[in-house]
């Protein structure tokens, strides 16, 4: 009897489902960042708005990376439905707190897929995921650094204006 399932697809049904779930998470992240960009723009934080526009685009790129990988491996990529995007925030700081929460949940989710692939010895997908593990280092660093600005600069006086200016300059350039 031929191994028809394996002939059709490199990835297992379980890994395929997890990758599709990740497609949805990345799409959700992209929409969340877009809402953050809007909120910051409306409230006069132009550098932060620009920062979140860029993040939104990156998340869209992540989504497509997962999407195309599923298809290339013989799977079925599912275009996700994205709902429940919060449009209003209570404070400038809250935006960045939620941005970090969002990145942490993405990191955890990718770790979860990685663990599943190790269990199945799907080293091909593990190798694909390595790029995302490295990316999450940068994503969490940037989100954490933004929050740190609230501590070191402080929100009093022209603090928020200063914080916004510095958000525009956040970079992660570790060679490690």
């Amino acid at each position, binding site marked *: *009897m*031929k*191994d*028809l*399932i*394996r*002939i*059709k697809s490199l990835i297992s*049904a379980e890994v395929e489902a997890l990758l599709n779930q990740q497609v949805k998470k990345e799409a959700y992240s992209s929409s969340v960042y877009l809402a953050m960009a809007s909120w910051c723009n409306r409230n006069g934080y132009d550098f932060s708005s620009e920062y979140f526009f860029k993040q939104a685009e990156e998340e869209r790129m992540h989504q497509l990376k997962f999407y195309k990988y599923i298809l290339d491996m013989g799977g*079925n990529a599912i275009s996700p439905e994205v709902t429940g995007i919060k449009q209003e925030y209570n404070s400038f700081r809250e935006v960045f707190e939620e941005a970090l929460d969002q990145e942490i949940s993405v990191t955890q989710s990718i770790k979860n897929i990685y663990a599943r692939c190790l269990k199945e010895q799907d080293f091909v997908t593990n190798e694909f995921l390595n790029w995302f593990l490295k990316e999450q280092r940068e994503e969490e660093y940037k989100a954490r650094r933004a929050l740190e600005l609230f501590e070191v600069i402080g929100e009093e006086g022209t603090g928020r204006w200063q914080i916004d200016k510095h958000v525009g300059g956040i970079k992660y350039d570790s060679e490690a």
Partner: protein
Amino acid sequence: MVTTTQTKELSTWTNVFSTAKGAIYQSDEERCWYVDFAGKVAKFDYRCLLKLKKAVYHVDIEDRLLNSGKSPDVEIIFICACDHTYVLSLLQIIALKEILEGTFVMFELNHIIQDTLYRLPY
């Protein structure tokens, strides 16, 4: 693609898994499966078989048993883009689920055997 046939070509099909209630056969030649259940033999390609599995596994059997008063004891298994539908009782769902579970365990076993006998030694 799903078509229904009356004749079982058992000579060229491999019995993947069967119970007293039904069976699933694989045709290597046509690269598809035949599901012999509920009085018919239906042909499923790769995508449709996965959709059938998903649809059957999706039925919350426990919930149906506990809340049998609310809804009728029939489940419609409609598989999108496969122009094929099953109308099954809860007992039939349980039986079909058992066949599918067995089938997919056999697929996994076959995968291990193929690796061990043919792919890895050379």
